[in-house]
């Protein structure tokens, strides 16, 4: 009893962590589910079928392919543009710097539904109502990923000591060499983290995409569509794969930074 009282915070914290993982555990479990009927969503029996035939519903795999394609393209563009902006904001002094910071911040503070409907209004007013689809989804995704990229890279850059760059230029490196051999490698983890964040935001977005997608169907939209009629278990396979892949990426980064930290000691 005394032990419980002394560790009550850690115990509740642990319970909250369990709460975070219960639905995830179910996603993994259901990816091995052998459903008796399509209408009742419960665990009926174990099977590997869902993993062996992930594209049993071709519509799902089409939506998945579209989401990956848009995710990669939007991430590439947002990461490049966002990284440039982060460098400008941290390393350069220019008129309108604080206004730029505000402009970067606002999209993160605005509700998605408002961003989505305003973007739709723009497209409709611009006469693109009939052309909603891949390009409009892509534009929307670049727009809302951009701020997150800038913020992530900016914090990495701001935490960097510029004496390293001064040391490099003292040791006869030209500005280009200094950038590519010192600055860029040091910022790279921040850029990769930003790209990962950007991809998962793009891949996961529903509310903004749903308003601007025309007849295109991304993976979240597919899930939304089938949620009412009965979910193919392959959706859980995708969910599990996303979890595993991002876990691997994040843990690799974690292990690397720990190893680097240990090497420094």
């Amino acid at each position: 009893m005394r032990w419980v009282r002394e560790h009550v915070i850690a115990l509740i914290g642990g319970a909250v962590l369990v709460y975070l993982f219960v639905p995830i555990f179910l996603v993994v479990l259901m990816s091995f589910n052998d459903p008796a009927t399509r209408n009742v969503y419960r665990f009926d029996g174990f099977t590997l079928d869902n993993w062996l035939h992930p594209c049993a519903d071709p519509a799902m795999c089409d939506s998945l392919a579209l989401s990956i394609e848009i995710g990669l393209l939007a991430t590439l563009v947002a990461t490049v543009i966002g990284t440039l902006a982060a460098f400008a904001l941290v390393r350069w002094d220019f008129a309108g710097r604080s206004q730029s910071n505000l402009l970067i911040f606002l999209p993160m503070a605005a509700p998605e539904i408002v961003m989505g409907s305003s973007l739709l209004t723009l497209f409709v007013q611009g006469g693109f109502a009939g052309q909603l689809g891949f390009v409009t989804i892509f534009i929307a995704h670049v727009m809302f990923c951009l701020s997150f990229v800038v913020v992530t890279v900016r914090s990495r850059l701001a935490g960097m000591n510029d004496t390293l760059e001064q040391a490099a230029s003292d040791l006869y490196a030209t500005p280009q060499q200094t950038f590519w051999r010192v600055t860029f490698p040091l910022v790279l983890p921040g850029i990769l983290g930003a790209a990962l964040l950007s991809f998962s935001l793009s891949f996961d977005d529903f509310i903004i995409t749903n308003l601007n997608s025309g007849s295109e169907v991304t993976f979240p939209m597919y899930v939304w569509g089938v949620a009412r009629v009965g979910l193919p278990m392959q959706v859980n396979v995708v969910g599990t794969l996303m979890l595993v892949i991002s876990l691997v990426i994040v843990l690799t980064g974690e292990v690397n930074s720990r190893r680097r930290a240990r090497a420094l000691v």
Partner: protein
Amino acid sequence: MAESRVAAPADSGRRRGLTAYVLMAPAVIVLGLFFVIPFYSLVAASLYDPGGSDKAGWDVTYHFANYWEAIKLYKGQLLRSLLYGGAATLICLVLGYVLAYAIAFKSGRWKSLLLVLVIVPFFTSFLVRTLSWQLILADDGWVVDALQFVHILGQDDKLLATDFAVIMGLAYNFLPFMVLPLFASIDKIDPRLIEASSDLYSNPITGFFKVTWPLSLPGVVSGTLLTFIPATGDYINAELLGNTETTVIGKVIQLQATNANHPHIAAALSMILMFLIVAMVLVYVRRVGTEELL
């Protein structure tokens, strides 16, 4: 050497030059075209003549009555969204605070691993994990069975398709937005300050409210905003975990915006939602902020 001197960072640490504008331009153009201008489109659309249609075209006639019309029709959904968002934020604050505190002060060398664990669940799709809650809270699921067995729930009571399910789903989905800023603030608190408060006759509870809580306020403020704003605008949880009586404003905006005859209502509702959120945020930041924030 002389040239690089000119370009080298001055004492301020920041360089001046045209390059900055070149670096900044793409981001400003993207956000200008697709964030700022759409906002003006939205303002314009909210003032359309309600007699228009997508076929006949729309005229901006400064028809402010659109706002009254929107409020009259959907004040219930507006209020419900704010209540859901507020309740979910409160739950997130309580759960997130304990978790962030435990990670900051009780986890020792597992700190960074635990932080990763907080984020990991959110790498599966938002929709998939929300649907997972459908399964957990289902009428014939074990949670309902267990609660009925201990008579917390009556035989006819249910969890899914209730306000409770919607709020819990929102709290679940936005919890990391609360935990991360809270952790950042709490982790910075010197544990000796808590010892000092204890040494100066504070029991753990007064010590918490006099020292830990005020010092963590920056995290509380940003965590609350990061949770409240998206939770209020979200309609996925209300649709997947709620019932026909739990429709929220996000869903209404979605429906009206894609309805050929009502873009002005969708626009007016978006504006109202934005206005309400901004107003509540300002009041909140002012109340919490002025005196206690460092």
